[in-house]
């Protein structure tokens, strides 16, 4: 069920076209992410939904209601700001209860609601602390509690995890997901970190330069990116040059170094026409064949160009005859498995089913 509908939304800042004809539907109860590099317009879009920016054209409906002329204080949305915006002159409890000031609840009811909200974010008992004496992670939870206590239809999160240390960030990602399932409302997250988006979201809108490049669930985005840009932004991708020789339910493509391949049309999610095309292969779909190893799959010969050790994985760059750039592939560091040196000759196993034909 659609909760938020944006149609033809445009926004300019002076000469700068920040949002270009955005059409978007966000469903009730989903964890939705706006993902993209800096300057792509994702934060602007979030602020349009929140009511801090007015679109120059187009419409926004939340739960069937038009939001034109409705200020941020009257919308069924609440926001967690990138800087958390915790009121430094108030205590934690006063911060969390701030939005209840105008409600008709009695004082004891308000106090109870604040207590419950703090419990929900894991800060039970912190009510009397001074807000400006908290750590970054704690402030973020206060910001969450403060927004959720008002039971909004939509929770908007503006890069909430970017200021946190890596370990805490990963912890919070899981906690946010659990929180969203528990509370059951729609979450809209803005982030530039594609891993974060993949981990937490039900659906992701990848944005570039004010427009939406692709809108899909994480798995589809990862395995079937529509364009080179999306493919390159999410995860690592090898790009090979190819020539499409015939299209239809099955596509014939001549790939540099790999020869002639036949792939079903789903492996060209953006659609292709005859002629030059970019062929993507994810590193984890390629395997290094060690001395004496055999495989049913296709193989090509090459030489190790670069070795990068990551602890649980090792990434290899392998220069293959006929392919312009070295192929990057990853191998799990299993016990007993050797790590090759730079310069050693080797073979790479690959599968037609892992090819993705990309539009421009």
């Amino acid at each position: 069920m659609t909760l938020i509908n944006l149609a033809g939304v445009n926004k300019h800042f002076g000469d700068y076209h920040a949002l270009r004809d955005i059409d978007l539907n966000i469903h009730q109860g989903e964890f939705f992410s706006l993902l993209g590099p800096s300057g792509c317009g994702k934060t602007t879009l979030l602020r349009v939904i929140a009511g801090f920016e007015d679109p120059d054209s187009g419409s926004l409906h939340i739960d069937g209601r038009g939001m034109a002329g409705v200020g941020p204080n009257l919308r069924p949305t609440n926001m967690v700001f990138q800087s958390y915006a915790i009121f430094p002159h108030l205590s934690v409890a006063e911060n969390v209860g701030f939005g209840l000031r105008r409600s008709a609840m009695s004082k004891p009811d308000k106090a109870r609601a604040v207590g419950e909200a703090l419990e929900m974010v894991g800060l039970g008992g912190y009510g009397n602390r001074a807000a400006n004496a908290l750590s970054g992670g704690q402030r973020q939870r206060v910001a969450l509690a403060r927004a959720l206590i008002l039971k909004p239809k939509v929770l908007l999160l503006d890069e909430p995890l970017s200021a946190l240390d890596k370990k805490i960030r990963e912890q919070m990602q899981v906690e946010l997901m659990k929180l969203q399932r528990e509370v059951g409302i729609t979450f809209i997250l803005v982030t530039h970190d594609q891993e974060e988006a993949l981990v937490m979201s039900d659906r992701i809108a990848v944005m570039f330069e004010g427009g939406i490049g692709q809108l899909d669930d994480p798995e589809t985005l990862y395995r079937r990116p529509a364009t080179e840009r999306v493919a390159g932004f999410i995860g690592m991708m090898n790009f090979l040059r190819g020539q499409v020789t015939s299209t239809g339910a099955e596509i014939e493509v001549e790939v540099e170094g790999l020869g002639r391949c036949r792939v079903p049309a789903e492996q060209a999610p953006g659609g292709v026409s005859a002629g030059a095309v970019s062929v993507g292969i994810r590193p984890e779909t390629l395997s290094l064949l060690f001395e004496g190893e055999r495989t049913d799959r296709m193989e090509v010969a090459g030489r190790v160009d670069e070795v990068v050790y990551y602890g649980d994985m090792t990434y290899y760059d392998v220069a293959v005859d006929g392919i312009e750039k070295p192929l990057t592939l990853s191998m799990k560091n299993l016990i007993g498995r050797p790590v090759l040196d730079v310069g050693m000759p080797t073979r790479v196993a690959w599968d037609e089913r892992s090819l993705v034909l990309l539009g421009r």
Partner: protein
Amino acid sequence: MRGLRFYAIAYLVFLYAPIALLPLFAFNDADIIAFPLSGGTTRWFAELTQSASLLDAARNSLIIAATTAVLSTVLGVCAARAATMADWPLKRPMMGLIMLPLVLPEIIVAVSLLVLAVQVFGLGLSNTTIIAAHTLICMPFSIAVLNGAFQNLDPALEEAALDLGETRLSAFRLVLLPLVMPGIVSSLLISFTISLDEFIIAFFLSGANPTMPVYIWGLLRFPGQLPVVMALGTILVALSIVLLTIAEIMRRRGLKRAGLRDRGGFL
């Protein structure tokens, strides 16, 4: 570097030396201001309390200073809020005009207002003209202090308040005002002090009732009155120092409340 520290101390002594003379000679039992000292007395202070015209001048100055402080701070809050939180066409020239009195010699301000009030509009001179002029010159100082206070605020704080249901006005009252309150208090105290001490404009625009500095100026003609002036000066300087210490304590407390680092001074 020890040489530099010595210089710094010497500099401070040079700054304070003249002021230190005030209490020294205010309690000195002599008619002229010169060394050697001749014993203590409080008769100069006693003379102060008996002067009706002095008390009138003092009351005048206080009324003018208090009114100026309030007006200057209110206008200053408007200008500082606008300047730190928004941009509009012609912003820089407009702010430039408002801040201009900082770099104009006061005599120019005094003279031009005198001409306008008296020669053009035929208005009489009174406390009101002085209040108007003092507010004009205090406004830039208020704005300088309040700019700092507003700039230290996270702009997201106001947006958060709006997001949580407040209107612009109530967001200002509940979130911004408490956080800039130390700046407001500083602005009030600074404007008050400036107005209290200001001479040239008051001299040009005084009506029948002189302000304190104008009154002192009158006293300076009479050599016999010099010790009394020292006594008066001692009180005024002590008062200024107390007010400013309070302003500084408030400023520091404000910074602590907002959880910010102290970068020194009103700047």
